[in-house]
C-alpha cells in the first residue's frame, strides 16, 4: 500500500478516536463511541499489516493471540470493584510497549554512534523514559490496589534526594544519547534507571492518592505513545497519544483540585507521613463531644419516615462490595415514597469516577448520581444522609480547621442535613489517620460494623417498619 493511502486510512482511525471521546460526553451515546473507537483501532491494525515495511507475520500473529487472549480474559473476568487495578495494568502494558518499541528502534537505527537525526533520537529517549516510568509505576499502582503490597506510603530517609538523583541521571543519559553518544549500553541503563524510578516514585504514594497517580500515569502513557509517533514519523500515534495525554493531564488536575493539593504535594508529600502530628493537633482542638452509636433498627425508622435520603459512598463501600445491597435498600425506601440520591465526591475511591461505576454496576440509574456541587445544594433539604465507608470527603475540618492536613479540600457538606448516619467498621481513623469531627457532631449517629452487613440489616429492618 502506498504511504499516502496508509496515512489517509490512519486519519480514519484518528477521526474514530475523536468521535469516541466526543460520544463520551453523554452516557446514552458513550458505549457506541467506544465501539466506533474499537473499529478505528481495527482499521489501523489492518492498514499496518498492509504496510510495505511489514513482511514477517508470524511474530505479530503469535503476539496478538497471546496478548489479545490475556486482555480479553482479564477484562471479562475482572470484578467492578477491582477496576482501578485493571485500569492501572492496561495503562502499564501500553507504556511498556512504547518503551520496547524505542529500544528496538534504537538498536536497529543506531548501530554506530552519530548516525541518528537529533529529533529522532530525542523522541526515542522520551518514549523510552516516559514509557518505562509509566510501566513500572503502573505495576506498583496495580500491586498496591490489588493489595499485593501495602497500600500505606512506604518511606525511608533521603527518599526524595534518591529519587531526584536517579531522575537526573536518567535525563542526563537521555541528553547524552540524543546529543550523539549513541551507545547501546547507555539506553539499556536509561531504561533500567527509568523503571527503577517508576517503582520508587509510586511506592511512597498512599492509597487515597491513587486517583491522582492513576490519572498521571495515564497521561504518561499517552505522551510515550506520542513520542513513539515522532520516532516512527506516524501521525496516528502522535494524535492518539496526545489525546490521551490531554485527557490524563486534565483528570490529574481535576483530582488535585478535588483534594485541594498541588500535584507536586501528592507526588512528593507522602501523605500518611503528616498524619500523627495532625491527628494530635486535631484531637487537641476538637470539642469533647460524644460519639453516639445507634442500632440498625433505630436507623431504619429514621430512613423509613424520611422524605429525602442521600447516600454518600466511599472506598469502604467498594471494599465491602456493598453496592448491590445499597441499591436494594434504596429500592425499598423508594417503594415507600422516599426520595433517594447519591452524592459522589470526585476523589471517593481509588480512581476518578470509581463510585459511579460501582453504583452503575448495581443498576443505580445514573440521574440519581449527583456531583459534589449539585449534592451540596441539596443537603439542607435532606432528612437523612447515610455515609457508607467515606471519611475524609465528609470531614468538616476541611472547611474550618486550618491545622488539618486536608484543610481547604472541597467536601460534601453532609452536616447541613437534618441527620447524619455514618456506617463505619470502628472508630479507627480513616486512611490518613485524620480525626473527623463529623463523628462527634450532635446530628451524627454511628452504625458500627461491616458496610455490607450493616446495609443488609438496615434493609431487613426497613421492611419490618
Amino acid at each position: 500500500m502506498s504511504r499516502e493511502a496508509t496515512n489517509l486510512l490512519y486519519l480514519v482511525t484518528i477521526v474514530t478516536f475523536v468521535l469516541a471521546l466526543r460520544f463520551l460526553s453523554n452516557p446514552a451515546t458513550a458505549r457506541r463511541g467506544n465501539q466506533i473507537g474499537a473499529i478505528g483501532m481495527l482499521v489501523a491494525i489492518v492498514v499496518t499489516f498492509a504496510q510495505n515495511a511489514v513482511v514477517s507475520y508470524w511474530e505479530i500473529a503469535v503476539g496478538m493471540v497471546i496478548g489479545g487472549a490475556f486482555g480479553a480474559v482479564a477484562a471479562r473476568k475482572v470484578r467492578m470493584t477491582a477496576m482501578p487495578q485493571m485500569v492501572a495494568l492496561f495503562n502499564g502494558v501500553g507504556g511498556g510497549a512504547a518503551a520496547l518499541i524505542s529500544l528496538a528502534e534504537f538498536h536497529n537505527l543506531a548501530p554506530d554512534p552519530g548516525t541518528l537525526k537529533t529529533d529522532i533520537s530525542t523522541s526515542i529517549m522520551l518514549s523510552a523514559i516516559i514509557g518505562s516510568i509509566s510501566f513500572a509505576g503502573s505495576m506498583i499502582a496495580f500491586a498496591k490496589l490489588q493489595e499485593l503490597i501495602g497500600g500505606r506510603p512506604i518511606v525511608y530517609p533521603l527518599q526524595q534526594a534518591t529519587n531526584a538523583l536517579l531522575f537526573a541521571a536518567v535525563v542526563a543519559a537521555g541528553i547524552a544519547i540524543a546529543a550523539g553518544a549513541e551507545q547501546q549500553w547507555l539506553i539499556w541503563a536509561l531504561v533500567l534507571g527509568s523503571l527503577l524510578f517508576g517503582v520508587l516514585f509510586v511506592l511512597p504514594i498512599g492509597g487515597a492518592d491513587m486517583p491522582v497517580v492513576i490519572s498521571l500515569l495515564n497521561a504518561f502513557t499517552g505522551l510515550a505513545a506520542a513520542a513513539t509517533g515522532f520516532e516512527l514519523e506516524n501521525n496516528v500515534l502522535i494524535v492518539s497519544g496526545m489525546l490521551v495525554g490531554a485527557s490524563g493531564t486534565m483528570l490529574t488536575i481535576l483530582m488535585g483540585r478535588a483534594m485541594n493539593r498541588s500535584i507536586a504535594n501528592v507526588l512528593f508529600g507522602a501523605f500518611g507521613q503528616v498524619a500523627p502530628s495532625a491527628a494530635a493537633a486535631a484531637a487537641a482542638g476538637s470539642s469533647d463531644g460524644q460519639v453516639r452509636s445507634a442500632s440498625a433498627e433505630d436507623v431504619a425508622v429514621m430512613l423509613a419516615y424520611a422524605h429525602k435520603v442521600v447516600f454518600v459512598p466511599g472506598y469502604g463501600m467498594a471494599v465491602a462490595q456493598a453496592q448491590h445491597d445499597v441499591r436494594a435498600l434504596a429500592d425499598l425506601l423508594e417503594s415507600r415514597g422516599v426520595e433517594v440520591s447519591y452524592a459522589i465526591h470526585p476523589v471517593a475511591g481509588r480512581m476518578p469516577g470509581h463510585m459511579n461505576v460501582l453504583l452503575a454496576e448495581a443498576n443505580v440509574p445514573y440521574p440519581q448520581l449527583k456531583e459534589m456541587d449539585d449534592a451540596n445544594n441539596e443537603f439542607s433539604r435532606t432528612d437523612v444522609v447515610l455515609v457508607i465507608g467515606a471519611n475524609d470527603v465528609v470531614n468538616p475540618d476541611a472547611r474550618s480547621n486550618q491545622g488539618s492536613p486536608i484543610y481547604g479540600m472541597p467536601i460534601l457538606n453532609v452536616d447541613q442535613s437534618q441527620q447524619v448516619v455514618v456506617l463505619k467498621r470502628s472508630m479507627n481513623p480513616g486512611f490518613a489517620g485524620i480525626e473527623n469531627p463529623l463523628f462527634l457532631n450532635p446530628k451524627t449517629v454511628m452504625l458500627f460494623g461491616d458496610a455490607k452487613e450493616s446495609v443488609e440489616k438496615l434493609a431487613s429492618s426497613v421492611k419490618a417498619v
Partner: protein
Amino acid sequence: MSHGLLLTFEITILVLAIFLGFEVISKVPTLLHTPLMSGTNAIHGIVIVGAMLVAGAGHKDTLTTIIGLVAVVLASANVVGGFVVTDRMLEMFKKRERRDPHS
C-alpha cells in the same frame, strides 16, 4: 518532503491535537471519568502500530524479534483489554426502567 519540513508538520499536528483533546475531554461529565480513563487507555493501545512495525520487519536479529514480539503482546493486551473493559462499564450506565413509586 525534507526531514525538517516533516518535523514541523508533526509538531503542528501535535499542538492541534492537544487543543482538540482538552476541548473534547472537557465535555465529559464526572459521571463517566472512569470510562474516560479506560477508554483513553484503549486508545493509547495504538502503540500496537509501532509494535507491529518492529515485529513485522524483515531481516531482523534475535534481539529485535524478541523485543518486537513482547511489544506486540503488551500492546494487544492493552487494545483488547482496554476496549472490552470500557464496553463492560458503559453497558452498565442506564437511565432507568422507572417504576413509579406511587403506583
